[in-house]
């Protein structure tokens, strides 16, 4: 999962170097933070407590921590996270660890608002301690280094959050696409594709691909495309239907277009689209009869 995000965010040796360069994180910054590790360790407990004071103090963010044991667990993680800032490294392993934070937040649905606010509190707490215990010049240098690294972490968390979110959206889109292109086998060698809703070019491509695969899988000789549920047939839709028909023909099957209302018939003719290459029928029932006859079969009444 995290490895996947490393890839998605383009973080390899080069990507990391470039990101670090943009945040102006130098080896001196990291070395400087490492010298303050002792200070960080002595205040880690307090910093984490104050951070959770903020997070648990708001009903919306509090809702993400259902019970005491989960609070204890995240506090422990936070402790490790905090000390990670003072380890003096910012390598691939460091980034991998930071990406887990973003991915975990997306998984539980914690929006950036909450952790950006928390990062703000973090920085103020770190500043307080650095200024409180170091000389002015030293403190200022340390504050700058810490700010760079915390913002760097923040960028990773947000980028992961967005990437994870996009993954979720893509999964949903795939599910919707699949549901919106049901190809039904109505008889041996006859497939039915009932189209419902608007057909845009993306969906039209999807329809063609799904249909062609199924034609070969089922070795179907006839395909009925029913467009009774398509509210609008414009030039683009008509063109896609024609292309699909051509592709189906290349496989060695025939397409029958059904569900053509008076309105659609009028539109098609007015648009000047030539669909004479397609078999067409007004009603799906007629299309099924035609499909069967193409296969040399017919529906007959049972003998009494």
């Amino acid at each position: 999962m995290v490895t996947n995000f490393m890839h998605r965010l383009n973080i390899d040796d080069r990507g990391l170097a470039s990101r670090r360069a943009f945040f102006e994180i130098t080896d001196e910054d990291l070395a400087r933070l490492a010298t303050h590790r002792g200070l960080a360790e002595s205040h880690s407990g307090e910093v984490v407590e104050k951070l959770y004071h903020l997070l648990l103090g708001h009903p919306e963010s509090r809702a993400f921590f259902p019970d005491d044991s989960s609070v204890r667990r995240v506090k422990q993680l936070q402790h490790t996270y905090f000390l990670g800032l003072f380890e003096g490294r910012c390598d691939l392993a460091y980034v991998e660890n930071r990406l887990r934070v973003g991915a975990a937040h997306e998984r539980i649905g914690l929006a950036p608002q909450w952790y950006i606010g928390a990062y703000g509190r973090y920085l103020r707490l770190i500043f307080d301690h650095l200024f409180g215990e170091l000389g002015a010049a030293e403190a200022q240098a340390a504050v700058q280094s810490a700010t760079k690294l915390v913002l760097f972490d923040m960028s990773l968390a947000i980028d992961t959050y967005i990437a994870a979110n996009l993954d979720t959206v893509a999964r949903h889109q795939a599910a919707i696409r699949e549901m919106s292109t049901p190809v039904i086998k109505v008889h041996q060698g006859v497939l039915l594709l009932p189209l419902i809703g608007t057909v845009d070019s993306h969906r039209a491509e999807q329809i063609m691909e799904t249909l062609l695969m199924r034609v070969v899988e089922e070795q179907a000789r006839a395909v009925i495309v029913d467009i009774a549920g398509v509210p609008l047939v414009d030039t683009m839709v008509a063109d896609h239907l024609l292309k699909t028909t051509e592709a189906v023909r290349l496989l060695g099957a025939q397409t029958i277009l059904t569900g053509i209302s008076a309105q659609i018939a009028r539109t098609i003719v007015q648009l000047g689209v030539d669909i004479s290459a397609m078999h067409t029928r007004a009603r799906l029932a007629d299309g099924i009869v035609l499909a069967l006859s193409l296969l040399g079969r017919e529906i007959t009444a049972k003998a009494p």
Partner: protein
Amino acid sequence: MARGSIPILRVGDNLLVTVQTDLHDAVAEAFQEDLLAAIEKTGAAGLLIDVTGLDIVDSYVARVLADTAKMARLMGTDTVIVGIRPEVAATLVRMGYTMSGVRTALNVDDGLAMLPARR
């Protein structure tokens, strides 16, 4: 690939060819020549070209196939192309290349059934 490397089988009055390697330009031309020569020699009634093995058919290969069918027609031989893959069909149509006038079938059985049985 040298000429004659795509085997042409004779089944009854028909010729049966299975294309299994990608048809690069030179191969495609040799393939067309071989087929026409075989038609000339045998006077076959039908020609079946099975392209199930082709993952990629570019516009050049599609044109060679369509032209071959037309040339065979001129020599009195009906051609059926079978086994075009879904992704190949989609690509050809997207390129606007529909091989109109060429007969197609889903598989070899269907294709053979479309060819004349003159014996």
